[in-house]
């Protein structure tokens, strides 16, 4: 879900860019160097996952998964999404330089919301966890559509029809994302629970702390 270049007004573009920059700054500050490879490689995995198309009746929609991105990455989701959108602009011309900020905001704010809303519910009993997973997938796309709609609406009140269309057309996507999120979270809980928030990664899997610069200098 993204907005093309040339549509939005200056105030919307500028506030979007400012908020995205602030979010990215916080995300980067909280991202330690010993986590950076995790975030980078997971970010490419999410990029690839967003190219997957699933059928919805006669049409097909591509996955967005910003709910799971938020759950797994927390605040790092903001720079990860910024990077992914930059690459999308370069490879496919989805979005572009001037809308990078607002598009990051549209995807990353719901991801953050989902992180804080649902990370505590994943390890409750199965019915609660499944409901939380569905809500996570559904809500992330719903909030993104809502933000996209409001960006259009604040640009030009006459865009109301287009904005409503954007939210309405994404309803099936929200349901599909919800269902896929249920299965995906259940899968991760069985296979690699350390990826999800709320569980510490197993001891033998923990990466060693980053070497500090002095140590590196000694080695050479």
């Amino acid at each position, binding site marked *: 879900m993204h907005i093309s270049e040339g549509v939005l007004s200056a105030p919307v573009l500028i506030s979007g860019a400012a908020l995205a920059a602030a979010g990215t700054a916080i995300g980067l500050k909280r991202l330690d160097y010993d986590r950076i490879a995790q975030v980078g490689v997971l970010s490419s995995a999410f990029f*690839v996952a967003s190219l997957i198309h699933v059928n919805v009746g006669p049409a097909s929609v591509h996955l967005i998964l910003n709910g799971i991105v938020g759950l797994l990455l927390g605040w790092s989701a903001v720079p990860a999404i910024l990077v992914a959108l930059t690459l999308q602009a370069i490879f496919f011309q989805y979005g572009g330089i001037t809308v990078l900020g607002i598009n990051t905001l549209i995807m990353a704010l719901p991801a953050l919301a989902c992180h804080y809303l649902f990370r505590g519910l994943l390890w409750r009993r199965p019915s609660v966890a499944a409901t939380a997973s569905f809500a996570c997938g559904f809500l992330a796309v719903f909030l993104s559509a809502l933000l996209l709609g409001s960006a259009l609406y604040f640009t030009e009140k006459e865009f109301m029809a287009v904005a409503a269309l954007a939210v309405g057309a994404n309803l099936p996507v929200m349901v599909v994302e919800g269902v896929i999120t249920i299965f995906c979270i259940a899968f991760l809980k069985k296979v690699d629970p350390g990826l999800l928030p709320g569980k510490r990664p197993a001891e033998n899997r923990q990466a060693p702390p980053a070497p500090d610069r002095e140590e590196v200098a000694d080695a050479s």
Partner: protein
Amino acid sequence: MIAEPFARGSSRLHQLDPRIRVVAASGLSLVVALSHQLPTLIAALLAGVGLVVLANLPLMAVAKRLSVVTGFLLLLWLVLPFTMHGDPMFNLGPFTATREGLSYAGRITFKSLAILLLFLAMVTTMSVATLGHTLARLRLPDKLIVLLLLTYRYLFVLEQEYQRLKRAADIRGFRPGTDLHSYRTFAYLVGMLLVRASARARRVYLAMCCRGFNGRFYTLTGFSPDAQQLPLTLLLGVIGILLLLLEMKW
């Protein structure tokens, strides 16, 4: 599937210092995005076409790249003229198209295409690796650059990983449809992709530590603007100033 067809080339624009290209692309896009006047937008579109021609990009491929926005623009042309209030222009059954609506849809179309062409001519003409080092020289945060380069590096690896998983599913007779089974299969595919990505990231990080990673990726290629690049740099500056003047005069 994922490719950078325009990244290599020998045109004047390809040889221009990437820093100048990135700064000019950002500056010009910003000017165009904030403009409202039709003459400015038409001039910007012409400048975009000119730069794409100067970059010697295959025009058919460029047209294909532009097609990603046509869906949205078409929607605007279908909705805006009939929903905006203003002078009626013509009737289409029960709907009345207004002059304001048509001109608004027209301006968005020009603006959108102009920015896209500028981006194609100046940013997609370098590889993402070059872009990463360029942004590092432009003083963007180191962590962001490392993240960009890592994501770019593993994109292709993980795409192959996904293709491998998908092929295995296909060989077992998986036919995607609109049912719970298909969604569960895709969810597990995504889950497996994430698990493998994370495992790979652990190995990658250890390998980076072994090589003395200290938070930066270094490049041996230096960027040195020379006198030959001056005319093109000036041209980009003049385009920017002209667009600003056009916008303010009207």
